[in-house]
């Protein structure tokens, strides 16, 4: 049986960045619509089963009701059986369960934070990350039909990894203990509480470590990207310090918000090299855009970039490979 997993985060896309910037709004009914297209496309390619994460909006049930009502659902659509907590832990748990179940591809709908949570639950399942969040660097904007086809191709292929990028990730350690991970950026701000979670004020940002960066992205990784581009295929990351002195760069730190910031120091980080600092005051480390790790004065912080992240499906590449393998030919 060929199966795919679908995790759609009903909480993504509603944070404070709709107030402090001009961020996109995608409501949950639209997420249901995207999921319908993913399921139908995967079904059309020959996938037998789609497993959904249970969530507060019951996205999986809404997809099933609608497609059954239309008489167009033929694959087995299932919902993982666990009591939801309506937190990020649901995503971690669902991803873990889906990998154990043996899904051939995990499709994640949400922002950078949702993908980060999913990655915590998987080891080698190919990941296809679809943007429905805010300042998305990791997930890609793509049509649900294309996402469904790409996920199906990954699930149906013998070796989908040849059409994936083995991503880098950032490991955050505090006083030697692993506290969390980030896929794109770890940003140190002088906030000392999580508050509304998002970060948007450049005045409060002191350091940025990125696994990759480009000026064509949105968020604080774009600051590093405006200074130097680091591709997903480059075997290094970048560490940037901000201050009142240094080279000025203009960067899109939020949707519709280009802000000048000064880079006082920047250096490449080889894979495995630790970027270390001792916290002088209370601060927060935001991971992929959300304040997550609280640091106390005197804490020793270490941020390390390694190529030990998820296997990310490259849609165009895998769909081209699917054509080479004759997956679109009518039998």
């Amino acid at each position, binding site marked *: 049986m060929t199966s795919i997993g679908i995790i759609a985060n009903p909480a993504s896309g509603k944070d404070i960045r709709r107030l402090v910037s001009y961020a996109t*709004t995608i409501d949950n009914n639209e997420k249901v619509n995207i999921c319908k297209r993913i399921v139908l496309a995967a079904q059309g390619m020959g996938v037998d089963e789609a497993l959904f994460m249970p969530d507060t909006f019951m996205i999986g049930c809404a997809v099933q009701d609608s497609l059954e009502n239309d008489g167009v659902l033929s694959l087995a659509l299932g919902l993982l059986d666990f009591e939801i907590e309506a937190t990020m832990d649901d995503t971690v748990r669902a991803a873990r369960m889906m990998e154990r179940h043996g899904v051939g591809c995990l499709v994640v709908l949400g922002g950078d934070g949702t993908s980060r949570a999913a990655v915590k639950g998987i080891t080698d399942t190919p990941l296809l990350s679809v943007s429905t969040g805010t300042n998305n660097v990791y997930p890609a904007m793509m049509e649900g039909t294309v996402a469904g086809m790409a996920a199906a191709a990954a699930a149906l292929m013998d070796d989908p990894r040849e059409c994936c990028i083995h991503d880098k990730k950032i490991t955050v350690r505090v006083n030697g203990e692993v506290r969390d991970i980030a896929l794109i950026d770890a940003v140190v701000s002088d906030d000392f509480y999580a508050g*509304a979670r998002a970060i948007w004020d450049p005045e409060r940002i002191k350091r940025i470590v990125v696994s990759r960066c480009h000026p064509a992205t949105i968020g604080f990784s774009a600051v590093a990207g405006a200074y130097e581009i680091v591709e997903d295929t480059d075997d290094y990351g970048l560490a940037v310090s901000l201050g009142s002195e240094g080279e000025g760069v203009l960067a899109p730190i939020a949707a519709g918000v280009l802000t000048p910031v000064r880079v006082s120091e920047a250096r490449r980080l080889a894979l495995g090299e630790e970027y270390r600092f001792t916290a002088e005051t209370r601060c927060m480390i935001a991971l992929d855009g959300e304040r997550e790790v609280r640091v106390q004065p005197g804490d020793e912080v270490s941020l390390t970039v390694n190529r030990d992240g998820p296997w990310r499906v490259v849609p165009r590449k895998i769909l081209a490979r699917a054509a080479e393998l004759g997956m679109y030919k009518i039998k």
Partner: protein
Amino acid sequence: MAISKEQMKDMYVKMRRIRDFESTAAKLFAEGKIPGFVHLYLGEEAIAPAVCECLRDDDFITSTHRGHGHIIAKGGDLNLMMAELFGRETGYCKGKGGSMHIADRDKGILGANGIVGAGHCIACGAGLSAKIRGTDQVCVCFFGDGSTNQGTFHESLNMASIWKLPVIFVCENNHYGISMSQDRHQAIKDVADRGAAYNIPGIAVDGNDPLAVYEAAAEAVARARAGKGPTLLECKTYRQHGHFEGDPAIYKPKEEQAAWMEKDPMPRYAKFLVENGVMTQEEVDAVDAQVAQEIEDSIAFADAQPFPSVESAVVDVYSDIVEEVRDR
């Protein structure tokens, strides 16, 4: 928008004041000292103090049937509130309105309100007034998830959006409209989603975290003051008691109640303040003791006040014009 330590402390004082006032009201109601209905704000204390921390004295709020928290957060007088709950002559409404009608025009409190969804329209009126008068005052409209199915909610969001009124719609989503869970009364999970239909930013925050509420409210208030229009701010929270005192709330699953009690804003915020050096445990204890005394004083004050006279039963009921007509 950065928050100072003084503001953080002030929010704690107000949260504690609300928690103690409401806990005391529950006890007094059970003892039969408070007539009428009482709807308590227990569990939702992180919201109104954080929102009102962003307001000036000359800004407005509209409230609901569950209004004690809003009124305390905007600076309402505890003695006058308690006297009103006791039905005494010196209460906010001369002892004749009770819990659901407390208002204080001098403090911009445009009234608790027994009609679900009525505050939305009043908030638009206050916002329009500020706009016409050319001030930069704003109005915060507090309401629950149940009222977002009322026509007034939709009409008000539409009007506020089209006229760019300085109104911040703060939905205290406690997941129940009376005894009806949100899952059963609306086909959406996030009330914030409804903002998009009216071209209003809709954002959702943890309503049990005053710092999360403050950050969002501060931005929304600044936006309204600058003439950029309304915001729909949804604060996810939980009503720890029944809809009204005396409601056994058997419709609430025990596991759900227990999970939300784990997120009780009071111990959570106090722990944060102490752990991060904003307040010492001794300072927290001192605030708790000071507030406990304030509540004791308000009971003593209320208890010593007279009941309204029989003759006053029809005073403030009919307008003078009606009296004149009747005399003819």
